């Protein structure tokens, strides 16, 4: 008896385990099927949308251009301090000479110049000027003297061998190794054959500097003998100061400010763009506030916030009565009136903006009517466009449906019996509305306000067209930096700040309303 019961227990335990297993399998299959359906779109969005956003966030801190274009200079500047107030040593100038020579051949120096020009004005022209002159420096005397000593120095093959020898032991002739590296990079990009290309002046300059500084030199092979001979001779060489060559092009090279800027922006990643976005700047001395006349971004952010709030409040003021009317009218009237809200909602943004541009003009319809009604005189036409008024009027109109629709859907759920009950208990119309109806409509106000506010702070088209200079938003500045000033890093930093602000607002929206509850039409 007890035996049978025991085996029954065992069977049912096994059965339930099996069942659990097969249920799990079914559940897993179901999950997989769901994920398979979602995967194509998820990948699509990740590639076409999320990757660009991540790229933008990355660009807001990325700063590889300095260390990519001037690798040797950046390294050489390690030993130099801006606070010393002195111009860097000849070694730094020599490093700059090698870097700039390569960069100028590759036409990369102008890009770097414009990049650094965002930080210190004048660098752009300094780099352009120096880049033009760098291959005509007087350093050709080194080439002449080395080839006079041994014509083999003028052979490309010598330098190919040199590069092979130095690959194993770069410390033998450190500057030469580094200059050769730059030279070969240049030849590779330009697809020139190192075996036929005549050696550049930078190689001889580097070799001279190495030998005269007493670098260990190579140990064996033909080159060792050649360098040993050259080492004997260099003391008698005619010399040229690279620093003087640069100063000859432009004496700004003596200014520690220039070098400080290069050093401050040498790291691969910088917070410089973000500092700029909040009116600070990264100077050679550290983080400083921008000069008074260049503090524009905080003001622009504040203006964007204030104007968005103004637009939001005007939308509440105009939208609330309309939503109330729509929610409380009989269906057949409210459906007709709803069209008046939905038509603007569905009309092209550009159409509505052009309408306002036409209406608000100095010689436009509104001013004409006001003059005709003798409200304003012919000479006193109101300035309604190209200022903040224009932006606020047009954007309130454009965003009003986004306030009315959520308000309406909340108000529809408020039972009219509550108001009647309040009145039958002796409340006046106002008390019944304010104490009973209004509190129930607050979620609608919240939803509509956040929606309008989020849409408003990222607006670009309307402020651009009707805002003039005083009515523009931060987004217009972002667009300006992308397409006109080409300071993409700053645009990315400003965009990142705006993005974080919007995401925080959406988080709040999700908490209050729930993204899933977004309804359309």
């Amino acid at each position: 008896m007890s035996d049978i019961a025991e085996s029954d227990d065992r069977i049912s335990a096994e059965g339930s385990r099996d069942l659990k297993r097969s249920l799990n399998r079914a559940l897993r299959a179901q999950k997989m099927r769901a994920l398979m359906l979602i995967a194509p779109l998820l990948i699509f969005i990740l590639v076409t949308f999320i990757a660009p956003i991540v790229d933008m966030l990355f660009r807001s801190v990325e700063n590889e251009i300095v260390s990519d274009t001037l690798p040797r200079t950046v390294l050489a500047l390690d030993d130099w301090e801006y606070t010393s107030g002195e111009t860097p040593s000849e070694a730094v100038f020599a490093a700059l000479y090698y870097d700039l020579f390569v960069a100028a051949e590759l036409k990369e120096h102008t890009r770097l110049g414009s990049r650094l020009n965002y930080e210190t004005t004048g660098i752009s022209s300094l780099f352009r000027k120096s880049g033009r002159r760098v291959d005509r420096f007087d350093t050709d005397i080194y080439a002449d003297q080395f080839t006079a000593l041994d014509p083999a120095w003028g052979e490309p093959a010598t330098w190919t061998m040199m590069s092979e020898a130095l690959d194993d032991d770069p410390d033998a002739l450190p500057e030469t190794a580094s200059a050769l590296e730059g030279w070969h990079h240049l030849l590779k990009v330009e697809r020139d054959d190192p075996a036929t290309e005549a050696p550049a002046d930078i190689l001889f300059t580097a070799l001279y500097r190495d030998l005269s500084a007493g670098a260990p030199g190579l140990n064996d092979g033909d080159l060792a003998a050649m360098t040993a001979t050259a080492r004997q001779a260099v003391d008698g060489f005619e010399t040229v100061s690279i620093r003087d060559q640069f100063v000859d092009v432009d004496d700004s090279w003596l200014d520690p400010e220039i070098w400080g800027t290069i050093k401050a922006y040498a790291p691969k990643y910088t917070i410089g763009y973000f500092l700029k976005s909040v009116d600070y700047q990264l100077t050679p001395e550290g983080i400083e506030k921008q000069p008074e006349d260049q503090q524009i971004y905080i003001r622009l952010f504040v203006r964007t916030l204030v104007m968005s709030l103004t637009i939001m409040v005007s939308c509440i003021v105009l939208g609330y009565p309309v939503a109330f009317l729509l929610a409380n009218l009989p269906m057949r009237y409210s459906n007709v009136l709803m069209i008046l809200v939905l038509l603007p909602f569905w009309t092209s943004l550009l159409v509505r903006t052009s309408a306002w541009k036409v209406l608000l003009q100095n010689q436009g319809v509104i001013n004409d009517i006001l003059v005709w009604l003798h409200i304003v005189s012919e000479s006193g036409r109101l300035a309604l466009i190209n200022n903040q008024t224009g932006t606020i009027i047009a954007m309130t109109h454009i965003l009003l449906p986004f306030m009315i629709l959520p308000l309406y859907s909340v108000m529809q759920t408020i039972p009219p019996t509550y108001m009647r009950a309040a009145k039958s208990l002796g409340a006046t119309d106002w008390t019944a509305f304010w104490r009973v109806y209004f509190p129930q409509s607050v979620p609608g106000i919240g939803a509509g306000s956040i929606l309008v506010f989020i849409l408003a702070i990222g607006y670009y088209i309307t402020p651009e067209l009707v805002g003039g200079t005083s009515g523009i938003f931060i987004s217009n500045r972002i667009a300006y930096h992308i397409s006109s000033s080409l300071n993409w890093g700053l645009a990315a930093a400003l965009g990142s700040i705006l993005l974080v602000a919007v995401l925080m607002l959406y988080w709040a929206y999700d908490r209050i309303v729930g993204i899933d509850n977004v309804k359309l039409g």
Partner: protein
Amino acid sequence: MSALPTYASTGQKIWYYGFRVICGLVFFFLIAPIITIIPLSFNAENFFTFTPGMLALDPEAYSLKHYQDFFTNSDWQQALKNSVTIAPMATIISVGLGTLAAIGLSQSHVPFRRAIMAILISPMIVPLIISAAGMYFFYSRVGLQGTYLGVVLAHAALGIPFVIITVTATLVGFDHSLTRAAANMGAGPVRTFFKVQMPLILPGVISGGLFAFITSFDEVVVVLFVGSASQKTLPWQMFIGLREQISPTILAVATILVVFSIALLTAVELLRRRSERIRGVSPR
């Protein structure tokens, strides 16, 4: 707000009518700018205001010359052509991928549902200028900047949230026992989808598609950055026109677009009612 009772006091009467006047003014504010540009687009002069002739209803003061300009000017025709090619292509991508994903999302067990939903909805959340900036940087890195493909992909991404939202909303009311019944009778998943599920969610799919279409058709910020002059669309051309030399042809285009949006609005409204009828949800 039912009709005013007969015993209403004077104050109540004033408030009742005053409130209606206020609402009337707001409705006027909403609709008047759009209505005003329609007669202005028939202006015989290159002005942006009503000429005395127009106010006197003189037929001489009206003309179709701005419409003629729209239909003959090569810039506008190019823009129109681009608009009507880019928007449908973007719509097809959004609707195809979006519908599949919405069906996947509506299953009962989806891991990371919230996170996936947040990613799929994100193109609607992120301000357009930021999407445009990011796409401009990224697409120029991969060589898509200034190409039709780039603009189509960008617009498809922007339209997807609308498809997801409308289709998942339709699927909420979907009775899953119907697909089980179909499977029970021997229909494969594909057949079940096309014969049972698709007809029921079709209104949602079409209205999502219309939203995606209008998003692309209306979109200007992203196309300004991701596109180049050869991909200019109607809104692009209008934006440039408004910023540089404002020409009354814009008003003619605007009028055409208003008529177009009325047609779209009607379509969406009819679809919504049909969807509610099919799914047995009584219209509100």
